[in-house]
């Protein structure tokens, strides 16, 4: 086919009154046929190849001198055979006088589409297969259709439109307009259509937009084609001279050339204005794709295809999650749609799989906007569908002197108080710090959602709330420790305020009792924050600074008891919790075995480990002999957990820490406990900072063997750490100066050593080594890491007794020196 001949035909067709779009469609069809022929003649290489038309050619609006934009997509890497194929395909086109803009990509390029240049991605939105492998082509388009890539292209398109319009001073009223690039030109027509394709297919169906756009496009295509033919090149500017010529050729009315030009340009400006208006409306109304069938508009996050979403309740939570992520509301239309259909579905329809239920928990993490999204969810009936007990307190009125809101709003306000702590540290900085330290803050929100559901009855609402929550939590896959924690929080949500505000917290017995109830620092933080959020949600000003101080004071006293004073409270056989643990043991464990294991360990042990873990520890302790260690190493969510039972010996704790450090492990949390018979139970949680365990299949066994060797005395931690020490110390930590504080009075049996220092690799090893170097025995250890700060509490003795003041000073000096040297 000769291009000049084909181009001449377009001109004749247009001047004879033919539609511009139809003429160009025929022209594109002829090019297609030529490419199909050349593709076959070029003998495609062995691998899959697809030839796709892009841009105006893809839309079948190929103007006479426009570039023929071709995407040549290969299934694999491009080598010599592919290069030869490209030459055989492209050279004949160039020789014939066509201007070909070609892009060569392989399958891997398409897999990383969002990293590609925006112009290419936009061109791809009009891609049309001309020849070759349709599967390969569909695969590329599927990658293009993901919400992430569409959102990326959408943003890029918006930016390109703004940049292009700025080049024309953002006005379409140009005396010599560029028919393609100017505002209201062909690029804007294409942009409006692309916006619709990327977001909402029905975007242009409003009113007469689609019809006006099609008419304007046809007009512009006719003009552009004639300009091309007059200029014999890809020139799109409708200059003065050509205006005069085209006005005559197209038969515009007027006695003079000037009048005919004015008639032509009047029509041009009318058409361009129509395009600009349609594009503007599309830009305002187009939902930015954020997730499957979800888009963001100025009204917020909404379903793109509402009828489809109405039948898919499992997609509803995603709308609220996307709104939370984007910091906007869920659109009124979407809330209305959910409101209309929510009664048709049960909780199992909304949260049908474990993945959906896990998504709900993630959604509940306190952050900016959570209160607003939960309120929307409540308002449209979805919250009551997901958490049925919540329905029981909707608009529930409890008349008392204090509460200012209905029970449901009080609950949501309590969550709002947590959200405020998460967003702005001041003015409740100390409580905000606690919130940041929580391992699973979403459990606190779930507990708050449920804490007052029992108020649908007038009796003891906390117990009723617990009863209602139990069944719900099972349905949400919340079990084990998280479930126990939530039920604990609900059952005791009034307890901390009662103790803080109404009991004498200077009485050590009151603090001891409260500590026994709470059991662990994590639960204490949760209950403290729950109390704060709950009291502050009763009404404005209910939580005064005065109350805050009382609450904080009880928190600190209890925290100190749990971390510094717990060593004196030991498990006795007759203790109810121990007896229950023995009574409910599994069949493979003997009653005496369990009781002997428990006796003499700190009572804290029964509160921080559930029965399943305790029985596992008992099994590990079976038949343990001196110099032996029984171990278990397993992944636990984002960390690794090492459980270790052995018999006590000098330097033991330091050696174990040293081995873990030698593999680059960073110990985050843990407990080390010793019973009066010298049985040692250590549980460490650590990160595999150097990915030794992750990258080496046999690595867990290597770590375990190294621990066995060190405990048995076959090697030492110092040997293993040689060469690593200097490297570890070079890493300068950030944060407050380190503190090493010895308390000789907190415990009857132990000297308590508290270390608060910037977390560095090997820190725990160096501390425990310094303690052992002073001939002190480490009996109990609590290890925690809050952000970048390590907080470790050691209960130590020397020759079976507390340290003398002189020993305390010497040890403190060693540690302070070591910690400061570490900085």
């Amino acid at each position, binding site marked *: 086919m000769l291009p000049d001949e084909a181009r001449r035909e377009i001109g004749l067709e247009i001047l004879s009154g033919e539609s511009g779009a139809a003429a160009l469609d025929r022209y594109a069809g002829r090019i297609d046929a030529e490419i199909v022929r050349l593709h076959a003649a070029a003998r495609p290489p062995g691998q899959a190849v697809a030839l796709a038309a892009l841009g105006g050619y893809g839309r079948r609006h190929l103007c006479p001198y426009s570039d023929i934009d071709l995407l040549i997509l290969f299934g694999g890497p491009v080598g010599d055979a592919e290069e030869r194929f490209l030459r055989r395909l492209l050279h004949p086109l160039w020789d014939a006088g066509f201007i070909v803009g070609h892009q060569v990509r392989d399958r891997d390029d398409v897999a990383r589409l969002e990293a590609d240049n925006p112009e290419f991605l936009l061109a791809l939105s009009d891609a049309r297969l001309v020849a070759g492998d349709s599967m390969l082509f569909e695969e590329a388009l599927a990658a293009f259709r993901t919400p992430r890539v569409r959102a990326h292209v959408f943003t890029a398109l918006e930016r390109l439109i703004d940049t292009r319009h700025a080049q024309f001073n953002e006005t379409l009223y140009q005396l010599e307009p560029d028919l393609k690039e100017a505002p209201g030109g062909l690029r804007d027509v294409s942009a409006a259509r692309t916006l619709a394709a990327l977001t909402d297919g029905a975007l242009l169906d409003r009113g007469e937009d689609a019809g006006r756009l099609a008419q304007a496009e046809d007009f512009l295509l006719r003009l552009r084609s004639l300009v091309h033919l007059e200029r014999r090149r890809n020139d799109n500017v409708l200059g003065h001279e050509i205006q005069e010529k085209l006005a005559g050729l197209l038969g515009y009315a007027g006695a003079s050339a000037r009048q005919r030009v004015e008639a032509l340009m009047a029509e041009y400006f009318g058409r361009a204005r129509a395009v600009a208006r349609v594009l503007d409306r599309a830009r305002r109304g187009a939902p930015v794709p954020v997730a499957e069938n979800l888009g963001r508009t100025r009204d917020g996050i909404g379903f793109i295809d509402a009828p489809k979403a109405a039948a898919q309740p499992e997609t509803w939570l995603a709308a609220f999650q996307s709104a939370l992520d984007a910091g906007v509301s869920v659109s009124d239309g979407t809330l209305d749609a959910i409101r209309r259909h929510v009664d048709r579905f049960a909780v199992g329809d909304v949260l049908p799989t474990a993945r959906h239920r896990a998504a709900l928990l993630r959604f509940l993490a306190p952050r900016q906007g959570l209160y607003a999204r939960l309120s929307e969810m409540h308002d449209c009936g979805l919250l009551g569908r997901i958490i049925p007990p919540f329905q029981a307190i909707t608009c529930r009125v409890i008349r008392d002197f204090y509460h200012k809101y209905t029970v449901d709003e009080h609950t949501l306000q309590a969550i709002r108080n947590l959200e405020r702590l998460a967003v702005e540290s001041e003015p409740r900085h100390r409580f905000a710090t606690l919130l940041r330290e929580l391992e699973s803050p979403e459990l606190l929100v779930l507990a708050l959602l449920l804490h007052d559901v029992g108020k649908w009855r007038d009796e003891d609402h906390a117990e009723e709330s617990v009863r209602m929550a139990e069944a719900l939590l099972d349905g949400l896959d919340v079990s084990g420790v998280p479930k126990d924690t939530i039920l604990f929080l609900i059952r005791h949500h009034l307890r901390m305020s009662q103790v803080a505000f109404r009991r004498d917290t200077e009485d050590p017995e009151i603090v001891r009792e409260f500590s026994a109830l709470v059991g662990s620092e994590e639960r204490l933080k949760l209950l403290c924050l729950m109390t704060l959020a709950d009291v502050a949600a009763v009404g404005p000003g209910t939580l005064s600074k005065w109350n805050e101080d009382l609450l904080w004071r009880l928190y600190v006293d209890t925290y100190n008891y749990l971390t510094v004073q717990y060593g004196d409270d030991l498990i006795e056989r007759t203790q109810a919790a121990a007896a229950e643990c023995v009574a409910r043991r599994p069949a493979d464990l003997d009653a005496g075995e369990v009781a002997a294991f428990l006796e003499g360990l700190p009572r804290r042990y029964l509160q921080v480990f559930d029965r399943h873990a305790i029985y596992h520890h008992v099994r590990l302790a079976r038949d343990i002999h001196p110099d032996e260690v029984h171990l278990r190493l397993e992944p636990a969510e984002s960390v690794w957990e090492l459980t270790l039972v052995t018999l006590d010996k000098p330097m033991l704790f330091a050696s174990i820490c040293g081995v873990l450090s030698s593999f680059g492990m960073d110990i985050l949390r843990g407990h080390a406990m010793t019973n009066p018979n010298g049985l040692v139970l250590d549980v460490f949680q650590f990160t595999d900072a150097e990915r030794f365990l992750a990258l080496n299949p046999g690595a867990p066994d290597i770590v375990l063997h190294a621990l066995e060797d060190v405990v048995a005395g076959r090697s030492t931690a110092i040997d293993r750490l040689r060469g690593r020490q200097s490297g570890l110390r070079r890493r300068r930590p950030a944060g407050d100066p380190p503190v*090493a504080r010895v308390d000789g009075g907190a415990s009857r049996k132990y000297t308590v050593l508290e270390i608060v220092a910037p977390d560095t690799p090997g820190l725990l090893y160096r501390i425990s080594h310094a303690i052992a170097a002073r001939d002190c025995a480490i009996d109990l250890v609590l290890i925690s890491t809050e952000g970048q700060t390590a907080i470790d509490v050691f209960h130590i003795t020397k020759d079976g007794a507390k340290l003398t003041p002189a020993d305390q000073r010497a040890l403190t000096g060693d540690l302070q020196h070591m910690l400061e040297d570490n900085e």
Partner: protein
Amino acid sequence: MKLLKAIIRPNKVDDVKDALAKLNISGMTVTEVRGHGKQKGHTAIYRGKEYNVSLLPKMQVEVVVTNTIAEEAILAIVEAARTGEIGDGRVFVLPVEQSYRIRTGERDL
């Protein structure tokens, strides 16, 4: 008439209220206050660091009584609010010249 102004531990308000009720004294004003007397606050330790709690939370109970039962009321407050430890608080006794009921304009004798 006397105005008894008692600064007491927060957890002792109910005990003081009950003790005064036994003397048929029911009207009182309770205010959350912060301050220190001989107790002068204390040093608390949190995560190895000391910090000063200079102003302690206290409750201020104000009650106006006739001269005839003032002594008895003071004793009741002291007994109810006492723990024997530093920080139990103080009772101040102030003379009251006149008192009027706002609703009726009636003057108390």
